[in-house]
């Protein structure tokens, strides 16, 4: 998955930059190595090493144009918050090593599984997942993500959004099921803590996404919202929930990558990513517009895209475990995020909606973005259009693979079978799977899945049209500016100052730690 996206980004960037420093390609490949290693390692300290490698490559790629102030500031926010997270993780790993004398996940898991969990194990768990929560941009640790995306080169955004954030969540799932699962005893309360975090992230991300006008930041907030949904899928602690998350991550990664690449084309041709300024100016980019719109519909979970399948699985699993409201949250967030992206598509590529009033500030902000790309803006090179088109096609085809659901669910059962993992790693036992550690759930595509997917896509379309034509609605005509009263507090909240971000990290950790302490008592 990571390699597919790196390839797409590399082909795209072939013609994208006007002068590519040689270190760009090396850094991209190091980034890929970090991500692959992170997935494959079975050792908790190596997990940290790959995590840092991934992080360092990403910081350097974000600050690709260090001569610009914004770029440096965004990368610095990203680097500081993620470094704090990495050190917290390292402290947690040190504590757990001091307790068990082992760094292999299976060994640690076996050791602490034999003893009743105590304070030290809980603190170590909290510290280790702290770094991963920051990496995966879960509210209130999400602040760095939008800043980093706004300034990073577009092909890098593809990787940050499509893979790295999801890998943070993978790390949480891995650490939970391979190390701490038996010790913490799979308690419903822990699941509820993560469920709450996930829902909060999904809702906050979607709301911020809808009010954003900077297209890259908008897509970044949509990623935050989806990260929240993925966390909900993991927090259900069921094989079907995890399988749904996997499918959802694949679909979302492909679709989001296509959206970012299309944004890159817009930036290349028109020299801006400001939605207000771009209004109607993208009409000539027909192919890009079609791909962007399809990808936006995919983001809004329209069947046959893989996103709809993944979300359907998570919904089914939540429904089966007595959490029917999860479906409502998911639909609302999909509608908000998808509606925002479709609004961009309609406004920029088809000139729909009322033209916004020209704002001199906007033009100024739009002019800031130009230096990233080539000066030849007359046509779009084929190498830039084909990758996003292929990615969208993949996202649609993935969901049509027969027996995908069963295969992924079997993989999820293996992933969650900690005893089996320990036996395989420590004694070399060969376990035949799937073992019935949890009842398998039906992976058929139900009518509800199709209905909710189509429903949220239609809802997104309706919302997008409302957002484009809101000035004509009689209710809102009287000088009402959506969210006008909210701008100041939101800007204070999302200040761009790294001090505030770290304050939020410490506060968030204190709250989660307090909840865990209450649970463990």
């Amino acid at each position: 998955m990571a390699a597919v996206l790196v390839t797409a980004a590399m082909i795209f960037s072939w013609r994208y930059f006007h002068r590519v420093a040689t270190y760009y390609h090396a850094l991209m490949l190091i980034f890929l190595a970090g991500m692959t290693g992170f997935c494959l390692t079975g050792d908790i300290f190596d997990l940290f090493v790959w995590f840092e490698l991934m992080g360092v490559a990403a910081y350097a790629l974000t600050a690709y144009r260090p001569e610009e102030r914004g770029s440096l500031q965004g990368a610095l926010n990203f680097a500081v918050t993620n470094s704090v997270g990495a050190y917290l993780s390292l402290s947690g790993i040190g504590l757990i090593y001091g307790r068990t004398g082992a760094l292999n996940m299976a060994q640690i898991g076996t050791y602490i599984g034999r003893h009743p969990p105590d304070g030290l194990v809980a603190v170590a768990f909290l510290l280790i997942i702290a770094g991963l929560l920051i990496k995966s941009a879960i509210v209130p640790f999400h602040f760095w993500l939008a800043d980093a995306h706004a300034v990073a080169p577009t092909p890098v955004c593809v990787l940050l959004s499509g893979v790295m954030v999801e890998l943070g969540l993978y790390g949480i799932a891995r650490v939970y099921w391979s190390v701490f699962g038996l010790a913490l005893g799979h308690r419903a309360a822990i699941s509820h803590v993560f469920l709450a975090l996930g829902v909060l992230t999904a809702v906050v991300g979607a709301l911020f996404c809808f009010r954003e006008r900077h297209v890259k930041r908008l897509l970044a907030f949509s990623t935050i919202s989806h990260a929240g949904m993925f966390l909900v899928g993991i927090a259900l602690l069921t094989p079907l929930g995890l399988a749904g998350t996997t499918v959802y991550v694949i679909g979302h990664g492909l679709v989001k990558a296509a959206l970012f690449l299309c944004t890159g084309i817009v930036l290349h041709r028109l020299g801006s990513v400001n939605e207000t300024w771009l209004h109607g100016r993208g009409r000539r980019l027909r192919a890009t517009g079609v791909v962007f719109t399809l990808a936006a519909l995919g983001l809004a979970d329209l069947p046959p895209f893989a996103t709809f399948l993944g979300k359907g699985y998570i919904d089914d699993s939540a429904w089966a475990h007595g959490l029917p409201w999860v479906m409502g949250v998911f639909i609302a967030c999909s509608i908000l995020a998808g509606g925002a992206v479709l609004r961009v598509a309609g406004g920029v590529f088809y000139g729909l909606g009322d033209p916004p009033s020209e704002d001199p500030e906007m033009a100024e902000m739009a002019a800031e973005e130009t230096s990233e790309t080539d000066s030849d803006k007359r046509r779009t090179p084929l190498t830039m259009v084909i990758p996003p088109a292929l990615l969208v096609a993949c996202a649609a085809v993935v969901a049509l693979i027969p027996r995908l659901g069963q295969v992924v669910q079997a993989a999820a059962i293996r992933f969650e079978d900690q005893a089996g993992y320990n036996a395989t790693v420590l004694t070399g036992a060969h376990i035949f799977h799937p073992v019935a550690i949890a009842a398998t759930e039906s992976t058929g595509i139900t009518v509800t899945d199709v209905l909710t997917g189509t429903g949220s896509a239609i809802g997104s379309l309706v919302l997008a049209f409302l957002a484009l034509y809101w000035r004509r609605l009689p209710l809102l005509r009287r000088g009402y500016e959506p969210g006008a009263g909210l701008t100041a507090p939101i800007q204070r909240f999302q200040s761009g100052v790294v001090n505030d971000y770290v304050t939020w990290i410490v506060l968030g950790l204190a709250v989660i730690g307090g909840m865990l302490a209450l649970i463990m008592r």
Partner: protein
Amino acid sequence: MQYFPFVVAAWILGIGLYGIVTSRHLVHLIMCLIVVQSSTYVLLLGVGYVTGAATSRRDRSARAWPAWPRCL
């Protein structure tokens, strides 16, 4: 005395984070980040000291060596 290094590590972590939060100068902020980083060194040293110090030579050969060299 057994808990002393951990208390020190937690203290360094705390003041480092406090420094990051209150810093108004980027170089100062990075310095505080390095303070946070050094808390992990103290912690790791504390962990290593506790595991290795009290064992005699005979004990050490009998005890299973910490698993990380094998698992890396």
